[in-house]
């Protein structure tokens, strides 16, 4: 057994080292943080320009003329905002057209039924929006000033805070703050599969394509080889994630203000042990299942090119549950959601979504987790069998039944 562990460590070390030494890996891994850094630089430059532009706009006042058939706009308020009353609407429009006036607002007698007409000198697609904004702001401020009641004003303007509490099984249930943490396992699942799936598929293909299978099979137990490859792939994925996250972490820690990154209040997240444990187990089970399937495909197919034809549909199975996203949330007992919950290839994503949104019962979670681990481990065993008795068929597509047809002789 000590020899096996020694060999497992040797395989992990060899596979890990040669993967991270590849130029392609370095380019693929480093390109993401490089792109992120470039993106941050662009955001920084854009923010500086936007700030300068906003400052300029703040200092520049809009001068306009207006007519108010509704009588809502107090003259003093309009004047403070840079407005002057127009006596002749046609002349005011003509003045805007010839450039002698920046803008003209025509407030109708009943703004609830008729539109406010806004005329302005063209200052580009984005800056032209300010005319409508100023006209609307002036009307809102004028209406609120006539209510003369701060509470009603607050209610009308939407300046009221709401504090919600919901209950499940008699106990307070969390809102979006409780949904986010378990859904992080789904994010991790997707990241792991996107980063590693192609390498899992190719892990045993390489032995076949290089015709090294016979040397390996007489030196090393195939279970040890495949386990070592999976562990090394997982380690490689962790390295990639760390490299990807490094610029984001650096951005948050040192440049949050200059990059205008949103402030995250992690303390508001509600971490419930049940959904978190379920999410973690679903992640591990799903990873086991997909790893087994990908390694088995690699053992069956003679080349990476031919394996790619199966790879696409398999990856699609990971995204199909999102087509029923609304049903997953609103009607988890519907037939399609139930099928997706238990069908092995759609089960991880569907169950993780339902777990996040709190619609996966304890019994369902137990069944799906058990199913993922059992099916995953069975497929991994099948993958080892196919590799052992099938990968010698260099250049040929393997018959799975053929590997079982011959009778194994018991050691006498």
């Amino acid at each position, binding site marked *: 057994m000590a020899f096996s562990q020694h060999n497992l460590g040797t395989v992990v070390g060899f596979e890990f080292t040669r993967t991270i030494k590849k130029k392609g890996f370095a380019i693929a891994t480093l390109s993401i943080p490089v792109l992120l850094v470039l993106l941050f630089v662009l955001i920084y430059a854009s923010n500086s320009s936007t700030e300068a532009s906003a400052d300029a706009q703040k200092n520049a006042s809009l001068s306009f003329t207006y007519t108010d058939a509704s009588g809502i706009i107090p003259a003093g308020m309009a004047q403070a905002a840079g407005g002057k009353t127009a006596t002749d609407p046609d002349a005011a429009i003509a003045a805007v057209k010839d450039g002698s006036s920046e803008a003209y607002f025509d407030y109708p007698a009943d703004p609830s039924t008729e539109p406010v007409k806004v005329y302005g000198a063209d200052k580009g697609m984005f800056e032209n929006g300010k005319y409508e904004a100023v006209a609307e702001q002036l009307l809102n401020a004028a209406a609120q000033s006539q209510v003369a009641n701060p509470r009603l004003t607050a209610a009308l303007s939407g300046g009221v805070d709401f504090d919600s509490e919901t209950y499940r099984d008699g106990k307070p249930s969390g809102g979006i703050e409780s949904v986010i943490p378990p859904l992080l396992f789904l994010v991790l699942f997707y990241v792991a599969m996107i980063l590693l799936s192609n390498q899992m598929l190719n892990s045993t293909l390489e032995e076949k394509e290089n015709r090294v299978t016979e040397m390996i099979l007489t030196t090393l137990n195939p279970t040890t080889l495949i386990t070592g490859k999976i562990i090394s792939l997982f380690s490689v994925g962790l390295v990639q994630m760390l490299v990807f996250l490094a610029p984001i972490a650096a951005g948050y820690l040192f440049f949050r203000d200059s990059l205008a990154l949103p402030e995250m209040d992690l303390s508001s997240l509600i971490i419930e042990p049940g959904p978190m444990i379920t999410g973690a187990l679903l992640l591990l089970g799903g990873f086991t299942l997909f790893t087994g399937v990908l390694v088995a495909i690699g053992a069956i197919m003679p080349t990476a090119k031919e394996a790619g034809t199966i790879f696409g549909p398999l990856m699609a199975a990971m995204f199909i549950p999102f087509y029923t996203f609304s049903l997953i949330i609103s009607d988890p007992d519907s037939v399609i959601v139930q099928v997706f919950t238990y069908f092995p290839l759609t089960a991880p994503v569907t169950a993780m979504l339902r777990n996040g949104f709190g619609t996966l019962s304890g019994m369902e979670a137990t069944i799906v987790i058990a199913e993922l681990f059992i099916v995953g481990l069975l497929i991994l065993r099948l993958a080892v069998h196919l590799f*052992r008795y099938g990968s010698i068929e260099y250049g040929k597509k393997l018959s799975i039944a053929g590997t079982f047809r011959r009778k194994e002789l018991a050691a*006498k």
Partner: protein
Amino acid sequence: MTLGDAAEPLVHIQNFRMDFGDTTVIKDLSFDVRAGETFGFLGSNGSGKTTTLRALLGIYQPTAGTLHIGGKVFEPRDGARLGYLPEERGLYKKEAVLDVMVYFGRLKGLSKTAAKTWSQEYLERVGLVDKAAVRLDKLSGGQQQKVQLGVTIMNDPELLILDEPTKGFDPVNRRLLMDIIEEQKLAGATVIMVTHQMEEVERLCDRVILLKDGTARAYGTVSEVQEQFGGTLYRVTFEGILPASALYDVVTNAGGRAELAPRLGATETGVLRELVEAGVAVRSFTTARVSLEEIFIQVYGEQQMAEVQ
């Protein structure tokens, strides 16, 4: 870790049968390989030699029969000191020569330092020390085969199984390779060698088996096999006409040189006397064994001999 008890045959194959679908490749094969001997595994293309080795090593599941190494079915996890050079050559082509050798050395139980030291010494010996950091796919076919042989003989294998080891080598490197195999033999390794090169068999092998149509056509020491196929030949240089005789069969006869296969009970003196009495002027008369190449031709025919060579 030792492979088995020295008193028992190291390799024991009994009533081995191998079917691929409806095709029977091996019908009923039985033989033993004793510890410390060099065993020649001979046969024409497609006679089932590689299939037998793969089944012995657990790569194929046999249809029937017993295939044991050291008294049990071979499992690589035993950590046995076994070196196998397969017919289908291949290593991790995109990796550096030394990295691949050290990897296999580690898998065979050597420490990293020992594997590295051994690999460097081997590469120096086979003239590849300057290629240690070069990717395998940048090496020629022959150079890659040298590396693969190195990987095979790492950690002093107790059992060395070589499937056509000299295939693709030029005469100089073939001799180097044969020297290396002979060293392994002298160091106590049991060697099973599949080859079509009869001079290699005659130089190295203690015993041989000839496989044809999934069964053994001959099995034993080289002398025993020669004996089974006529054993002795008389080589005669002469002038005159060879007479027909009840004492011998004429195997070849051209340009004053002939090979005569003596019939049962015939002696050198009797044959020589008959030739002289028939008026043949005998210039030389020597006794020789039937060569393995001649036996191979007898068993497989001229055409197949040409194919394998």
